[in-house]
């Protein structure tokens, strides 16, 4: 395929392979004159810009020269250093000059483009070649057996490769060996080739077949085999290319015969040694495999001789050919459309008239038809190269696959002696090793149930106090006395309090009624008298240190305003909080709070009441009304809603102590809710502790997620997105809740947030190849997809496990895209439904089905998993649609996982590898079982139904063979699917519009138009949206057209 064209009669040289962009230098060719007989010459540089689709080459610079050129070569010399950024262009002139040009300067438009020149040659310089190993070495050759080696760094004194050959003759070609840098070959029209060794400074071998008919026009070394070269002959009597091997230099190794007249030039591809170009006086350009002497390709080219041909060093598929008709063509060896090129040419011609109406006739020119080329016309379809070029044969490749697998090609032989073994390695890529270890530990804990140890380890390893507290709270869930332990953690130790009460009691006694012998011994009495804190001795572990520890703990918890310890109110509160009525009453009495003491005593039982009443007359009353009333009235809502949040632990502790089990959670939630909306970030964080107490997994997750979001905004790709920290906590809490509530009480609602988190976690696990674990989480997650879940179309015979875990990723991928409206029904609905729920917000939120077994439930055990949409029901009723039954039956086939624990991989359920899968592409055509409760078709679309049914009836009336009739009957039924969609108004306006267009074309009996519109709709619409009826409609249109109704 022709890429570019330059209208010059010129010799050419491509820029070296290092050069980007690619340039082509042209120099006016010697020994050719056009009708003007002008002997002016110029050197031009063009850029090959393949992004520009026109045939023009962009000219980058021109230099007028006094001589014409025989040969042009481009050396990368100086490109790496500062010297010559675009290398050096070396020209062989007709008057014997070797001239060095700086192409950078030519392109910059400078005047001093000639670096240097030499007229050492006595005749025209016909041959030049740059050493492939040392870009500063250039060989030149001309008349009288002259060969010079020029060093561009020391241009003044060229060397000779050895003594001149005798008899003196013209030399037409020189070429450096491609493997051994000091070997040079030269060839002459006389048919002889000479090989020189520059180290020996001598001729080492002469190559000639002694036929005297070889007139060497070209010479090229084999790029790979150092001892092989080819020679071409321009003699019409012997239009051949000879391949020689210097190891057997008595006769040619191969003779490449196909040209019918003399060969004028050759070039051997460096990118693929099996490609050799040649052009000849028979107007042909051939591409050979010189090793087999086979012609691989013939360029569909010009009508004229090509006298020069060159592979582009940088772009291996590109070549240039200079022809005597004054054109240089740039071609691709890979074939391609020449038709487009012709059109381009036509456009160019048309464009050159400026506009489409050059004569102002008011009529645009008709599009120009290119006349057929007069030559043996290039066939419309050009066969490509018979053999794929080496450069398109991809030898390597590693591709990722599902589950963190990497598939790697291995074409290399395992040892050089053996033939290549073509194997494929499947590897497991694990990037998150630490993640997997932790995940494994969590899984192990889930299966062995040893949560206390797990939490304990977490507490020990916790980096900060809050983390430790959270884990302590979580651990409590697995203790026997849950509430007591919570109280403990909040800083209310029943036993210690009892002692404090006692201590206070003693102090008061001393203070109010003087020293009393309490029988505790003299030492103690002494201390009491001194008014100091009481040390009750070793057996009673009660001292200041203990208190300090508590303080520390509470400070860690984050509460700063905690000062209940030393005053009476505090003690009473503590006593009340821990249910120590008697102590509280005593304290009240001591503090002259009689009313309090009595009221308390009432709550404390008849015995206490009696006791208190006795003391009532000698004492007075005090405050604390609120707490007391709450305790007495058993109404905690007031306190919880009005308490000072800074002291949030008090109400929480109160609730711990007093609340009935059925209201406990709600109270904790209430307090948590207040904390969560508070302004103080510290308090917000504490909310999660309330939620842990409440066992409210959902709230805990949202709380923690928000806290996390504070320091980790949307994660970039490549990070492990779901926090394993969070997952661990949630999993443990869920298990705790599950254990606590086994028996069916207060189920926990699952949520979007939770599911998303679990889904992400599973996705990450799956990506690391941990499919079984991922599946366990997924099964917990996808059971909750909501009421309108559609079936997954699932090929039978494939591993359920893989399928589902793969889904996770799909789900997550789709997760954030808001998918509204009808979808294909494969796999996306989970995202669709959940995303929809999310959008609508809480007011429309329909709580999903409860999780009775948060993540441990066996997949498929949840009845929520299989709601069927009407469409799918119809689909599965159609006997031809067996595939749709797959997902349901598949799901139910899942065995109830034994013990229900999540570590059980589901992947063991696999069908046979080659099991039939059914035809999944068949659209969901449906024959409705019943037509009850159908909405009417909107009025504006009724015409569609009448038209389609009308034409079917017309067809039926005309159709003669029963098969057609059956088809039409079937179509009529199947179109119900379309009418249903019209009723639901679920089709996109574009499709409905298209349908109306089809209807109109049916009305006007233009069925072919209808079919075109049909194709357009199908190709431009969502497959799933139209698949149920469009094929049917096509049948109708085709039949109508055939029957000509």
């Amino acid at each position, binding site marked *: 395929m022709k890429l570019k064209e330059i209208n010059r009669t010129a010799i050419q040289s491509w820029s070296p392979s290092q050069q980007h962009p690619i340039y082509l230098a042209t120099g006016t060719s010697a020994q050719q004159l056009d009708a003007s007989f002008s002997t002016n010459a110029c050197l031009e540089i063009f850029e090959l810009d393949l992004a520009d689709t026109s045939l023009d080459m962009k000219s980058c610079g021109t230099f007028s020269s006094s001589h014409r050129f025989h040969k042009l070569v481009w050396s990368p010399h100086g490109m790496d250093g500062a010297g010559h950024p675009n290398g050096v262009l070396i020209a062989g002139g007709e008057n014997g000059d070797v001239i060095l040009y700086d192409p950078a300067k030519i392109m910059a438009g400078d005047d001093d483009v000639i670096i240097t020149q030499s007229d050492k040659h006595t005749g025209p310089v016909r041959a030049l070649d740059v050493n492939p190993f040392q870009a500063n070495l250039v060989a030149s050759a001309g008349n009288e057996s002259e060969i010079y080696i020029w060093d561009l760094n020391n241009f003044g004194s060229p060397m000779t490769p050895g003594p001149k050959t005798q008899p003196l003759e013209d030399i037409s070609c020189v070429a450096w060996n491609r493997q051994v840098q000091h070997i040079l070959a030269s060839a002459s029209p006389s048919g002889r080739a000479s090989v020189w060794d520059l180290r020996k400074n001598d001729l080492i071998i002469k190559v000639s077949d002694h036929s005297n008919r070889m007139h060497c026009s070209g010479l090229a070394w084999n790029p790979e085999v150092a001892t092989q070269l080819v020679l071409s002959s321009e003699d019409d009597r012997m239009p051949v290319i000879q391949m020689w091997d210097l190891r057997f230099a008595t006769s040619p190794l191969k003779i490449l015969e196909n040209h019918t007249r003399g060969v004028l030039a050759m070039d051997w591809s460096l990118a693929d040694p099996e490609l050799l170009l040649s052009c000849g006086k028979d107007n042909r350009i051939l591409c050979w495999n010189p090793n087999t002497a086979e012609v691989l390709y013939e360029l569909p080219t010009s009508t004229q001789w090509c006298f020069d041909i060159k592979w582009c060093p940088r772009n291996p598929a590109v070549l240039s050919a200079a022809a005597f008709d004054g054109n240089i063509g740039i071609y691709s060896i890979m074939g391609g459309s020449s038709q487009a090129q012709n059109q381009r040419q036509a456009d160019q011609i048309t464009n050159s008239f400026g506009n489409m109406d050059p004569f102002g006739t008011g009529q645009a020119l008709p599009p120009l038809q290119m006349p057929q080329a007069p030559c043996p016309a290039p066939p419309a379809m050009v066969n490509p190269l018979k053999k794929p070029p080496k450069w398109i044969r991809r030898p*390597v490749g590693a591709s990722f696959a599902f589950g963190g*697998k990497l598939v790697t090609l291995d074409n290399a032989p395992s040892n050089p002696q053996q033939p290549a073994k073509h*194997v494929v390695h499947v590897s497991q890529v694990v990037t998150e090793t630490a993640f997997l270890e932790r995940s494994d530990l969590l899984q192990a804990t889930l299966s062995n149930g040893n949560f206390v140890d797990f939490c304990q380890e977490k507490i020990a390893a916790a980096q900060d106090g809050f983390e430790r507290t959270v884990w302590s709270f979580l651990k409590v869930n697995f203790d026997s006395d849950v509430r007591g332990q919570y109280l403990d953690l909040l800083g209310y130790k029943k036993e210690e309090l009892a002692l404090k009460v006692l201590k206070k009691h003693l102090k008061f006694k001393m203070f109010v009624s003087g020293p009393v012998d309490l029988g505790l011994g003299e030492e103690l009495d002494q201390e009491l008298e001194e008014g100091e804190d009481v040390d009750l001795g070793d057996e009673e572990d009660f001292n200041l240190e203990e208190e300090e520890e508590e303080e520390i703990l509470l400070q860690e918890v984050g509460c700063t305003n905690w000062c209940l310890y030393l005053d009476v109110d505090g003690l009473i509160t503590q006593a009340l909080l821990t249910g120590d009525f008697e102590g509280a009453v005593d304290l009240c009495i001591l503090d002259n709070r009689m009313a309090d003491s009595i009221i308390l005593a009432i709550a404390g039982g008849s015995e206490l009441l009696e006791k208190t009443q006795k003391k009532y007359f000698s004492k007075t009353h005090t405050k604390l009304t609120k707490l007391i009333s709450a305790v007495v009235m058993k109404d905690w809502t007031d306190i919880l809603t009005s308490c000072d949040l800074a002291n949030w632990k008090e109400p929480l502790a109160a609730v711990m102590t007093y609340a009935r089990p059925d209201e406990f959670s709600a109270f904790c939630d209430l307090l948590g809710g207040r904390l969560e909306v508070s302004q103080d970030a510290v308090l917000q964080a504490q909310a999660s502790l309330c939620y842990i107490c409440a066992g409210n997994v959902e709230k805990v997750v949202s709380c923690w997620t928000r806290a996390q979001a504070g320091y980790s905004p949307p994660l970039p*790709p*490549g990070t492990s997105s779901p926090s394993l920290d969070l997952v661990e906590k949630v999993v443990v809490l869920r298990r705790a809740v599950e254990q606590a509530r086994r028996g069916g009480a207060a189920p926990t609602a699952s949520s979007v947030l939770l599911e998303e988190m679990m889904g992400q976690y599973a996705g990450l696990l799956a990506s690391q190849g941990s499919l079984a674990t991922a599946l366990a989480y997924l099964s917990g997650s996808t059971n909750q997809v909501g009421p309108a879940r559609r079936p997954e179309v699932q090929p039978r015979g494939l591993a359920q496990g893989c399928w589902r875990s793969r889904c996770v990723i799909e789900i997550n991928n789709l997760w954030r895209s808001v998918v*509204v409206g009808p979808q294909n029904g*494969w796999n996306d609905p989970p995202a669709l439904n959940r995303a929809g729920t999310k959008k609508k917000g809480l007011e429309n939120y329909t709580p999903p089905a409860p999780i009775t077994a948060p993540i441990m439930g066996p997949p498929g055990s949840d009845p929520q998993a299989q709601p069927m949409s009407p469409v799918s029901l119809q689909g599965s009723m159609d006997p031809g649609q067996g595939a749709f039954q797959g997902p349901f039956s598949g799901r139910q086939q899942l065995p109830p996982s034994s013990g229900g624990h999540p570590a059980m991989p589901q992947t063991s359920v696999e069908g046979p590898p080659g099991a039939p899968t059914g035809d999944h592409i068949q659209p969901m055509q449906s024959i409705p079982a019943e037509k009850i409760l159908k909405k009417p078709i909107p009025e504006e679309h009724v015409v569609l139904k009448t038209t389609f049914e009308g034409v079917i009836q017309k067809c039926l009336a005309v159709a003669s063979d029963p098969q057609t009739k059956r088809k039409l009957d079937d179509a009529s039924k199947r179109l119900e699917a379309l009418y249903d969609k019209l009723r639901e108004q679920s089709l996109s306006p574009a499709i409905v519009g298209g349908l109306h267009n089809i209807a109109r074309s049916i009305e006007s009996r233009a069925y072919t138009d209808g079919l075109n519109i049909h194709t357009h709709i199908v190709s431009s619409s969502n497959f799933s949206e139209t698949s149920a009826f469009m094929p049917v409609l096509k049948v109708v249109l085709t039949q109508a057209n055939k029957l000509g109704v």
Partner: protein
Amino acid sequence: TVMQVSVINTVDTSHEDMIHDAQMDYYGTRLATCSSDRTVKIFDVRNGGQILVADLRGHEGPVWQVAWAHPMYGNILASCSYDRKVIVWKEENGSWDKMYEYTGHESSMNSVCWGPYDFGLILACGSSDGAISLLTFTGEQQWDVKKISNAHTIGCNAVSWAPAVVPGSLVDQPSGQKPNYVKRFVSGGCDNLVKLWKEEDGQWKEDQKLEAHSDWVRDVGWAPSIGLPTSTIASCSQDGRVFIWTCEDPTGNTWTPKLLHKFVDVVWHVSWSITGNILAVSGGDNKVTLWKESMDGQWACISDVSKGQGAVSSITDTQQSEQ
């Protein structure tokens, strides 16, 4: 990052010539390979096994690439070859047969890639004749063909679809509006260009032209979406460079290249992990390296892979910073 790459299965394909591509199916249970020996083979590789399921003969030249369709359409495999043909193979009742043969190009078919399943069965094919075809299954053995002529002068080497998810749709989508499911794909070719294509009103149009490579673009890979508002494309070239192109602009107009690395040799192939966070780069001399983006946005080589086995990366930090 501690990184482990370990061979779990080595499949001796018994191909008689160079393998050019190997792709696992959606589930990672089957492996399709293709070779210069003109055949396509399918192996069941579950549980570390290698059972030859099918030996597909139909191409008359080296087969360059294979691509699995999404399983919702059945078990379907596309292959493309130097013989200018694209063949779609389908398993029916346990046996694999030609479902469709496409011969609409004038030169080697270099790349095939199935579009996201949301768009139905749609296959993009790139050819050495410079054109790209889009084949859409319209049902009843019918395929609709759309052709982009002159997509890449001298040839298209690779095609890769954009995920159907519009990046960042969660962020910016007005509520209730149907998502903007535009069909898009990326291609790379012998004109050194990476081009993005977009379907508008049923017509394929050039959307973007990304210039950074100085030689043939050998492969392109559009990263799977993980729901973030960034689109990412990897491109690799004969010039040894691998670029990561990203677009954070919701209109998709501003793409920024970042040089992942300049290798000494040609880079033939890039492949994203399913979660889009690791890039496998296959270069000349059978060198495979795995790359990961760090939190600060720098790409680092996390492993060398030789014969499927991971090794500590030989690409040092200084090499990485070399541009």
